[in-house]
């Protein structure tokens, strides 16, 4: 496996995603002799995982079973160990398209955080692009380097442990795109511009607060960036389920018996005790949903 290339069989050293049902997933590092406990029982890596096909059903010790999935940046995003607040797939998708990322793109990112977006960027820019990512927190920077190595994408990424607002990205004139997810992005706009190619590029800044957005937009305009646009994208999940709605009893119909017999036909036989009811297949919204993640501000650096 690799996060940038599919393979069919699970191998020693892979990261496999165990799907426990009901959209509950967990990441497992596959190692000879290792075991993983799940609520369905234990998974023995040597026999249950290694050399099995990705996507296969694995029976655990208690007779329960799970599916083992090939890692993708999207699955990693929902299973990764949080060291910071992370970007989720909905925002990542928008960032990727609006920054015009594709194979070969050179991207600068800060901060690296937990590496949720980094993995998605690496997937998109492989096999010829490169990611320069800056994280000022030493422990986080070291941890993410380790993860990139484990996920076999380390040849595509350089992690720098420095303060992007003071020291920039460590590269100049190479980037097609810059992504900022830091508390004071306006302080990094100058460095972002310097990191970008002479021929121009795209910039994105992610901020939860509108005051941050305002300062960033001002800094972007002052530095001569164009097409400054701020937007917000929200995911709405629809739960598919059947719903039964009762029909009121209007009493006996003196004219004809057609309406009552029709209702009886539609009602399932089991509901005979009840008055007539109708079953529809519809979706219901979740009781609560994330209402705000962050504002995404995009801009274009013109040719200089």
């Amino acid at each position: 496996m690799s996060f940038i290339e599919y393979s069919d069989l699970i191998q020693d050293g892979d990261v496999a995603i165990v799907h426990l049902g009901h959209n509950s997933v967990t990441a497992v590092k596959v190692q000879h002799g290792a075991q993983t406990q799940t609520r369905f029982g234990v998974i023995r890596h040597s026999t249950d995982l290694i050399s099995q096909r990705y996507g296969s059903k694995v029976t655990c010790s208690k007779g329960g079973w799970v599916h083992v999935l090939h890692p993708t940046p999207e699955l990693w995003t929902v299973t990764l160990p949080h060291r910071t607040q992370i970007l989720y797939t909905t925002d990542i998708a928008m960032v990727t398209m609006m920054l015009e990322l594709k194979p070969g793109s050179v991207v600068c990112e800060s901060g690296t955080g937990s590496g949720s977006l980094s993995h998605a960027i690496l997937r998109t820019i492989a096999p010829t692009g490169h990611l320069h990512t800056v994280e000022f927190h030493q422990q986080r920077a070291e941890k993410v380097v380790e993860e990139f190595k484990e996920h076999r994408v380390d040849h595509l990424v350089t992690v720098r442990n420095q303060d992007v607002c003071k020291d920039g990205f460590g590269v100049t004139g190479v980037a097609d795109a810059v992504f900022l997810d830091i508390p004071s992005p306006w302080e990094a706009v100058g460095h972002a511009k310097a990191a970008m190619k002479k021929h121009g590029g795209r910039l994105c800044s992610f901020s939860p607060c509108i005051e941050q957005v305002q300062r960033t937009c001002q800094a972007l305009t002052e530095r001569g960036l164009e097409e400054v646009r701020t937007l917000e994208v929200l995911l709405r999940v629809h739960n598919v389920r059947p719903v039964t709605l009762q029909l009121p009893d209007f009493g006996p119909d003196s004219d004809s018996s057609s309406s009552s017999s029709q209702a009886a036909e539609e009602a399932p036989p089991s509901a005979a005790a009840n008055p007539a009811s109708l079953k529809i297949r519809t979706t219901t919204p979740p009781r609560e949903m994330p209402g705000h993640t962050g504002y995404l501000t995009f801009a274009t650096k013109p040719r200089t």
Partner: protein
Amino acid sequence: MAQNEDDDYEYRIKEGDHIVLKRGDVYKAVQIQRKKKVIFEKQWILLDNVVGHLYGTTFEIASGGTLQPKEDKETESSTDVKVAGTDNRNIVDDGKSQKLTRDDIETMKEQGLKNEEIIQQLIDNSSTFNNKTGYAQDKYIKKKKKKYENTVTVLKPTCRIIATMYHGREPGKICHLRYDTLAQMLTLGNIHAGSKVLVFETCAGLVLGAIMERMGGYGSVIQMYPGGGPVRAGVECFGFPTHFHDMLHEFPICRVNALLAGTLDTSAKDPAADIAEEKHLNAAAEQEQIQPEAEQQEGGPTEERMETNTGGGGKDREKVEREKRQEAKAQERKVKLEEKRRKLAAAAALLEGRNADGLVIASQYHPCSVLLGLIKFLSPSRPFVVFSQFKETLIECYTKLKEQGGTVNLMLTDTWLRHYQVLPDRTHPLLLMSGGGGYLLSGTTVATDHSEPAAEEPAPKRQKVKDSEG
């Protein structure tokens, strides 16, 4: 200097390039051809002059042609405002605040006055302008600028721009697929270099183009198409290098059943299908010609035909010529069919392994049968994503997949997109937002377990589903 030019070579606009014209938030994709006039925002423009300039250059439109504008950074300050009111309590709408008449403005335009000069005239002749608040003055100038602006920017096409353009100009052609929804599809589908992706789309080729951009020429894309041939007008807009087309394959959806049953014969002739395809082929060829620039080429093919008909001399000569033409046409058709058969065999070979890495569906067809048919070509543990303008069709897909098993992580979603105006003391969401960008059903395939068809769902929920079916 020479070195500098080499450096810029790939960023320069060349003849034959597919470009995107931009003014404000309006885009239009065109191909650069010598002496070809295109209409953009109610103006005719000639693109000859843009060749050789850098992408991203803004041009001012002169009479009939385009010219490079001067670096006009001072225009921002030229309409500087000094006097401003604090509120609008004394501003009365009597319709007489503007002293200039429509005719006056037309004359100024004819005299070839610069847009900034016209705007300045409008301001000078507005009796209420100085009483307006600073914000209202800004808004007034912005509005007038938009109206009298006479510039166009030439951009290199990208998925972002083309998806935005299609959504703005021709949403009907792309099943109202909004660009943020397309972005979700590419990410949920884990589209990346080196994979083998199946696509079924009737979005003018936009979705296909977006996928090809993300794959960068690495791997393979198999377009499953309905009718006589794939529609790829949208792909053309991207202006991909020729080697990108080597990764692109096509397979008619009407042969899927045969392929699944193992009865598809790509070597021998299949007369019935050939005739049907031949008909489609001609229709599709014409259609494809018209589609990219429907506005301008409408009259094209018919005109030519009329000319050849009326231009004939003697009856015999006409007859001979007609026969010749028919023969040539038949020959051409034969070659095309042979080519088509070869392509079919290549695509079938890719599909036969049933080991595709991704499936993307976005069409005006009911997605259920398409999904259930095509998902069989995927390897286990691969993502798929289905777009539909309507939620109900995806509810049915969801239900069928749950019944049949073989998938996990099923999600029915849509996204909500909101743009913001960010200005000092005037930050708020834009007044207008898109009502709906369609719905997505996404999930991951897993190995099918034949002994327990509905093993996907935990017991209590499965009970519910069964109830509803009964």
